[in-house]
């Protein structure tokens, strides 16, 4: 055990920091759930790619830096310290790309990855269907092979970013007689294809953060199949593992929230200390964000040495999502009567973006597999308890 960064790692940190200082927009971008904000974020992806900072863990041949996980963590730390924009293409970069590298053909990689890297193509996710949410294996949208084309009919929902995105990846039932997790195929679909209707779903803040997508005889060339016919579940599970696990939720994000929470508490300490639960919650937030970072470093080191990520990705999901919810609820408590104000209200001085964060945090325990599902996974796969 050696918890010192190497000189190379230190240098790398300096390099990231310098680039971020020079390039992170000084005025925060608009929400990427607005059309204008989406374009701003697409631009930011382009800028990142120009510095070769967009997909640092990707192999160099695809425009990445082939960084190991520790370097990735350092990169993320500097990214969040610099208050850089949220990644609009995270579905692509963090979920589809690793899957593609594992299951994709050379042609697919060459065709898809570079445009993903530049932000030219932003990706949406197509997992859920109206009657297949937590129970993903219940999905019924189908893709029938006609010659060289899949003909897709059905409906997806809760597709994050889909209102403005260019492509969607998802699973479709290619064997019409199949049930549950058999007979599904992983297919990439251009969102401008004929027969696609995207209906925005406004979220709690009123912005269309996700969408329903209707497929009416949408024709997609077979070259957009990822993995084999009927192997969609296996391919998707790899993706779900990435999502729940290490890749998407950088500890840096939560450490920065914890830091801001400490500062908010100290700024408002006199009123905040009237409620002893607040001081307790701030202390816990700090320690938990730290525990999440430590645990992630531990996992990253283990993975660097060839280990595999297992059901502990479910413990991660529960931990960060509840931590995020708790931290924002605590901020709301500290803000008291000011907590309800929208950030642009003139009386909202000192309120910052906590309300936005509070709303967003409510989605954490729900998406990417509800925390109830994660607890089942922990109990059954990690602890070995009997299935229902």
């Amino acid at each position: 055990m050696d918890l010192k960064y190497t000189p190379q790692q230190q240098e790398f940190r300096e390099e990231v920091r310098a680039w971020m200082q020079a390039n992170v927009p000084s005025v925060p971008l608009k929400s990427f759930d607005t059309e204008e904000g989406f374009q701003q974020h697409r631009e930011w992806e382009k800028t990142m790619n120009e510095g070769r900072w967009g997909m640092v863990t990707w192999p160099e041949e695809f425009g990445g830096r082939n960084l190991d996980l520790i370097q990735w963590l350092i990169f993320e730390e500097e990214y969040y310290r610099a208050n850089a924009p949220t990644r609009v293409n995270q579905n692509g970069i963090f979920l589809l790309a690793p899957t593609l590298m594992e299951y994709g053909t050379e042609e697919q990689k060459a065709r898809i990855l570079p445009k993903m890297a530049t932000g030219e193509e932003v990706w949406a996710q197509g997992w859920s269907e109206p009657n297949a949410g937590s129970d993903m294996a219940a999905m019924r949208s189908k893709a029938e092979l006609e010659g060289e084309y899949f003909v897709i009919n059905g409906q997806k929902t809760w597709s994050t970013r889909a209102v403005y995105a260019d492509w969607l990846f998802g699973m479709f039932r290619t064997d019409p007689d199949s049930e549950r997790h058999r007979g599904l195929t992983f297919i990439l679909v251009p969102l401008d294809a004929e027969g696609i209707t995207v209906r925005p779903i406004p979220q709690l803040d009123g912005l269309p953060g996700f969408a329903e997508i209707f497929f009416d005889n949408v024709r997609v060339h077979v070259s957009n199949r990822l993995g084999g016919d009927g192997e969609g579940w296996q391919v998707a599970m790899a993706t779900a593992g990435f999502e729940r696990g290490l890749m998407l939720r950088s500890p840096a994000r939560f450490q920065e929230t914890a830091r801001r929470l400490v500062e908010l508490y100290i700024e408002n300490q006199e009123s905040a200390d009237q409620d002893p639960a607040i001081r307790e919650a701030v202390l816990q937030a700090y320690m938990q964000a730290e525990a999440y970072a430590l645990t992630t470093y531990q996992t990253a080191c283990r993975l660097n040495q060839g280990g595999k990520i297992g059901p502990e990705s479910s413990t991660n999901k529960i931990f960060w999502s509840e931590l995020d919810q708790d931290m924002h609820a605590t901020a709301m408590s500290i803000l008291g009567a000011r907590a309800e104000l929208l950030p642009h209200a003139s009386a909202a001085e000192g309120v910052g973006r906590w309300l936005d964060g509070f709303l967003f945090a409510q989605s954490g325990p729900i998406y990417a597999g509800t925390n109830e599902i994660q607890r089942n996974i922990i109990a059954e796969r990690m602890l070995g308890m009997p299935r229902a």
Partner: protein
Amino acid sequence: MNFTFSEDQILFRDSVREFLNNEVTAESLRARWDTPSGRCKELWAALAELGLTGMLVSEANGGLGMNEIDFVLLAEECGRAALPEPLVDTVLVATPVLQQAGKDDVLAAIATGQSAVAVQATEGALVADAEFSEYLILQENSAVYLVSSADATLELQESIDPGRRLYSVSWDASQANVLADGDRGVALQAKMFNLGALGAAAQLLGLSQRMIELSVNYTSERNQFGKPIGSFQAVKHHLANVAVKTEFAKAPVYRAAYSVAHNLSDAAQHVSHAKLAATEAATQAAKSGIQVHGAMGYTWEVDLQIFMKRAWALAGAWGSRGEHKARVASAVFGPERSLGAGQTFASAS
């Protein structure tokens, strides 16, 4: 000792619930979110017609001459309906203040539904519904003022709850009508604060129950893994926990109404307990409600959001959790504390 509501009080509550069920639907609330005022004068007139606006106005001034205990169940219904109009502040806070100051004309106007009155919780605080209301009750230093809303400059301050209309108020105290000042002003401010917090607590209690109902309905209908998600134990226990918190917030809220109505010496502590318990129930109902609704709970489409947002807003209104805990703490830890079995109703007897 009789800790129950009378049959008449229950029947009145039931009829108000039915009225609000019919008149304040989720669709009507959403429609109002998009209007400039966000309020409905016709609905206000209908509430007056039912006797609600004048409930606490004396009969001499055209009201029903009832008290805070009579109204608390109705404040709960206002919460359950997420009623946008400022009925609770006008009836439960402004009316007793104006009654004490002998403002018969304004009281009569409240009873007829001609005027609503908005109230400032503490000096400098934002005032809900200042624009809809003909009068404002405002504070400066130790004095309480009655101000015509036409004489004040209002700036809308947007809330996460589109059903709330909050305003910062600029006004000139030297031109305003003093309701009380000095020691009497301070006492009146304290009373207003207690009444307002009681009103918020009662609404939070109603909100909590509404969110439980919506969650039960949704999870009974939504199927996953071949059965309603409400049949899963994890979902059941989420909502059972909220039900427990809600059940044990009721009696504290009703007791606080009694203590305020009877000016008991520990009314402040009772109100704070009520506000804390109801806030805890309602914020938990929101958190568990969104969780059991899954992704649907995160959308604008589902009605749950209407009630969650009101609950989040009222959690901080009329005193933060810290302010209320400090009031309870000073009673519980103070040198004159008198705790333990048999003390619960000591100040009433």
